[in-house]
């Protein structure tokens, strides 16, 4: 299992569009990717769940990657967040 924290820099937070791109990216990995904000958790492959987190600019989320390809997946997802969110 690998985890990292990320603070959202996108000024509108994780809204529909970036959430959609995130889901698409997350689905390419075998690992289970979970995003949590405080108590709330969402699987990165579930669009509605991610949007329900209501993540806004400046908020910090914790990303958890667990699975066979976590070694390649975690850094890739982190890069993805930096580039898109």
């Amino acid at each position, binding site marked *: 299992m690998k985890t990292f924290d990320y603070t959202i820099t996108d000024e*509108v937070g994780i809204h*529909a569009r970036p959430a959609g791109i995130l889901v698409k990216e997350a689905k390419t990995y075998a690992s289970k990717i979970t995003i949590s904000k405080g108590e709330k958790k969402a699987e990165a492959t579930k669009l509605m769940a991610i949007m329900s987190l209501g993540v806004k600019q400046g908020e910090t989320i914790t990303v958890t990657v667990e699975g066979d390809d976590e070694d390649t997946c975690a850094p890739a997802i982190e890069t993805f967040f930096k580039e898109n969110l």
Partner: protein
Amino acid sequence: MDYNKCAKEILAAIGGKDNLVSAAHCATRLRLVIVDNDKTDQATLEDIDGVKGVFESAGQLQIIIGTGTVNKVYDEFIKEAGVEAASKDDVKAAAAAKAPMWKRAIKTLGDVFVPILPAIVASGLLMGIVEAIGKVSTDFSSTDWYAFLDMMSSTAFAFLPVLVAASAAKVFGANIYLGVVMGLMMVHPSLLNGWNVGNVESINEFFGVTDGIIPTWNLFGDLQIGDYVVGSISQHGYQGHVIPVVIVIWLMSKIEKWLHKHVPEMIDLFVVPITTIFISALAAFIVIGPIFSLLENYVLAGAEWLVQNPFGAAVVGFFYPATVVMGLHHMYNVIEAGMLAAGDLNTWMPIATAANFAQAAAALAVGLKAKNGKTKTIAIPSALSASLGITEPAIFGINFRFFKPFICAMIGGAVGGLFAAIVGLGATAYGVTGFPGFLIINNIPMYCLLLLISGGVAFILTWIIWKEGDTKKDKKAKDAPVADAEAKEVDATDTAVDDTAEKMVCTPVDGKVIPLTETPDETFASEALGKGGAIIPTGDTIKSPVNGTVNMVFDTGHAVGLESDDGVEILVHIGINTVELNGNGFETIAKEGDKVKVGDPLIKFDEKIIKDGGYNLTTPIIVTNTDDFASVELLTTGDVTSGTELLKVQK
């Protein structure tokens, strides 16, 4: 090694299943076609346990895994990648396991026959027409055109075991080429044509003998148990046979799979195919084939005895199509030839006609009654072909698959057979039935009546008894667009699946509906978030498109997510990029967790504020869990009021 782990790691390293176009394997390599090669991680690939090397060639990413291992990794790989065929087969197998044995057998036979129907329907029809014209005009039957057309149209039937074998190999998950080899073996030109088994002249000519007995190969010398010579193979082929071939290929698939599991990888490629073919061939020619040949002899003797009285004729008329299904009907022309040789009329032909024409009528009834386009397109030409005497397409393609029409036709055949025997119908030649039979019959008006009776009974019974919704297969196919029919049929199962019902998503607001792909925003238009539709609102309130629960309302009020009671997740996103308005112009009415019904207000918006802010008001309505369903279909476009059925979602 762990094949599944290897497959998973490969899939991850090539960038997941979305980056995969197709997968195949050869003797040593996994050959993948990749969407974007930049997404594949070659270094990681090479490090995977089991991967011996990686390179790109001819547009393929080739991963060397090794003989005997690659097919096992491939099997796991297509499972992991979610290749559709595999998962459907699983579903099918699981469903089939629950049905009773005979139903499974019929279903299997149907699965084998459906893919080869185009070939045999075309051939059957053409063959019927060519033979009929040949009978009418003896001039025509001596032309080169006739010879050519006869050769062409009879190809599919002359090599029927090959078509059946290929299709069966696919159904049973055996190597398709090994299946073809078995099929070809059973019609090998070194063997006497199966159609000539009862024909003394052909036997003498073919083998250069004079006693009319087919020679045997005795693999174990003269070793005998009673009268039976152990390992004796009669040197004739199985042209026109269906069931023995299906059984042989089934057995072959079992042997092949067992061997793949137990033979060491090093020698797998060398040992498995040769052993598979060897054992299958012995089983085919020593056991399975002869059992059916023996049955054929009994059927022949029984039929000869039965046909001597009217009630026997009814019995023959009834069971005739069953013998066609079993492939035991090839020697009937021996009976006909015998009758004519004895100076009598051929009274067999009218009974066969009754049976065949009844099949034609039953298929016609199905064709006229069916709403499913695919059933129709098979049923009607098949019926035509059967009325000309070639019944295989009608029986295997329609009647036997739906089964009830088959029984109805058997009853029609029995009634017709009885009638023919009572009025003393007979033919002066043999080889044709149905409409072409008019050319050789002794009493034309009575022959007309015979066709009317047998066909009429079968048609009326089928029309009354058979309903398109009888099986799930029909029900699903009926509701689906024609193009989808085949796909639907593939995963049709006999298990009750309640969640296959269609689920509706309605329009959330008055306005003009456009396809999602025409939304002026790439994210939505590309269907990356899911399939759905979009509406350019004229109203000012977003209402619930389903009965369900509000999952999420954005703080900014520009979008709302719901889950319907039947499991469809929907996102309604008001305008494009309107998140940037930060709530200005939106007033949320519903809140998370609210239970709502179609038409309940969710969000009010101010069109003026949104438009003045420079935003497009096009509102996508998206099924965000599209992947959970087989289809999401947009039902309407143009001006609508809120609450109109917008999307049809189906498992």
